[in-house]
């Protein structure tokens, strides 16, 4: 009898052991944090990678001088890339296409989707500026042949041309195409394509690492209660809730 209860007790305690979370106090956690080695040089690289990828060319140049960190790309190419991006953002698509081809003609040759999106953006800009005739001609000559090659291009073309059917585009179902966000979307697509052509990652590493931190904390939550950083912008450590 007593042995039976002893065994049951043992089972129960191992049961709670395996299901309850490990609790890590602030003191223990801070010790672990202190044991982590982060190289200054690596943080500098991370910051430089952000400046370069996001196109802060002057800041990247200054950072190179102030911290001695070498950028992972020729800084001159950032200026060109940003010029293309700006051109799309301000609606000068023809100019942007020319600039991309000056940079590297292969970018558009090997990227039919990007080329189509740029042409589509050009059509949108023509419609925005009320150049109906020019828009029609452009759609028929430049875009329609591409639509025949690709079903999704055709659908996008039809959606764009639909803009012409509305006198007042503010209430039309495809009005979002005229939104500034459409320009930004196209601009970031070109930006990414140029970066890829320069063997550079199209996204900076920092946002991914921050997402990884959120993810890693969520993962660890399943197994332990420990001091978390809930507000990434202050990086303040908060005591575990037990």
């Amino acid at each position, binding site marked *: 009898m007593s042995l039976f209860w002893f065994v049951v007790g043992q089972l129960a305690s191992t049961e709670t052991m395996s299901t309850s979370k490990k609790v890590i106090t602030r003191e223990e*956690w801070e010790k672990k944090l202190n044991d982590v080695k982060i190289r200054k040089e690596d943080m500098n690289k991370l910051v430089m990678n952000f400046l370069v990828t996001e196109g802060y060319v*002057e800041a990247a140049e200054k950072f190179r001088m*102030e*911290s001695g960190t070498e950028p992972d790309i020729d800084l001159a190419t950032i200026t060109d890339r940003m010029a293309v991006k700006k051109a799309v953002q301000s609606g000068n698509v023809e100019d942007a296409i020319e600039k991309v081809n000056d940079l590297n003609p292969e970018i558009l040759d090997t990227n039919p989707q990007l080329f189509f999106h740029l042409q589509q953006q050009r059509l949108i800009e023509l419609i925005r500026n009320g150049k109906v005739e020019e828009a029609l001609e452009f759609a028929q000559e430049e875009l329609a042949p591409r639509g025949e090659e690709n079903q999704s291009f055709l659908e996008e073309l039809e959606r764009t041309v639909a803009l012409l059917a509305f006198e007042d585009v503010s209430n039309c179902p495809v009005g979002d195409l005229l939104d500034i966000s459409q320009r930004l979307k196209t601009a970031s697509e070109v930006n990414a394509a140029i970066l890829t052509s320069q063997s550079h990652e199209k996204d900076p590493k920092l*946002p991914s690492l*921050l*997402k*990884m931190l959120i993810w890693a904390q969520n993962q660890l939550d399943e197994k*332990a209660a420990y001091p978390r950083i809930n507000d990434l912008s202050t*990086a303040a450590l908060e005591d575990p809730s037990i």
Partner: protein
Amino acid sequence: MVNDREPGFNCSLLSDLGARLWNPDQDVSMEEKEEVPTHLNPINSSGGFHVVSTDKLAVHYTSSQLHGHDVGVVQANCPAPVKTLAYYFEIFVKNAGLKGQIAIGFTCENFKMRRQPGWEANSYGYHGDDGLLYRGQGKGESFGPTFTSGDTIGGGINYATQEFFFTKNGKLVGTVYKDVKGPLFPTIAVHSQNEEVHVNFGQQQFVFDIEAFELEERRKQQIMIEKESLPLSLSHLIVRSYLIHYGYEETLNSFDAASRTTLPPVHVAQENGFMEESEMYALNHRKILRQLIRNGEIDSAFSKLREWYPQLVQKETSTICFLLHCQKFIELVRAGLLEAAVNYARAELAKFFKDSPLCSLLQECIALLAYEEPQNSPVGHFLNMAQREAVADAINTTILSTNPNLKDSQHCLHSHLEKLLRQLSACCLERRALNGDQGEAFHLHKVLSSGSKGDRR
């Protein structure tokens, strides 16, 4: 001891420096080194029924006995490493012998030799004669194709998904959940006359593209991570606060100027104006001192400090004085002014020998004198630009600690970016520790050195 006013602060400052400055070549990934299987272990094998080749990379069943307890099993010399994303090895079936009863799998340390992997508890095996997968019992389950002479079969452990996986001639056959803890040995078995199997622990190119497998696994994980959403402009904010923390003032000004014209506009929260002001503390002073130290102008740095922060350099034996005197000495060695360096050391550095925590650092530094080419000596790292940067960082942090608005001197020790990265590393390490030490750890250095070239998503 070094500074009576804030011993705690100086202590962490020193340990921080110790990590950064005095061992710059220490590679963090060294801690991850584990023994990996390189050959078969003929001692820990069933013996009698088979022969392990002299290079310990092949096994041959010579006996004609076929009893279920006469299996020719042999384990690798050590268990599969666990602190990695995946482990993998391959076998080549040279000869399927009489019955082709060949198996590949993983077994625990006290596996009962003379039995097929998978037949006993805590063992897993993919068997060639029936293509079945065995896990812990004599009855197999349907898994993949059979394999025979000329086939290359692989067995692996995916620590990210906690699965075993098996391959045939370079193609993935299938996976099975790894329901076993503790070390696992790569294991092969032969069980009919003339069966001959060669094993490849990675000494030769694998038939299966394990790099692509790992890349795909990382990509899957990355997709999960990318699903997390970030507050607007968070990265921007963190970069900005990094520049402020380290006093990279000119970069900050360019960054801010550019941010005002970016599209889409960057939204930097307005409400923390006070915090901002506190972060901006002594920005210009910190920038100037960093520039001076980076240029090796230590005397000027000293005089600026005396002018702006006399309390920091008042005490001749403070850590900050020690670092600057050391740096001055290093600059003299760099300039080849060895006599001046010796005189300087006698005048300014000798007194620090009394201070035990600094003593060993000082000794290393002075050792520069012992080498004809100090740049290429074991202490040559003192002459690197990173050394100047590290001293500048230490001065920067010390100045930050004089901010009267600061609640806690520990608070200013690290930038927000560094705090977040430390938290990330600690979370990954802790999670792994709670998972039987299995899987990869997070290393910023690896993240940064991977992917910039070639890895196009």
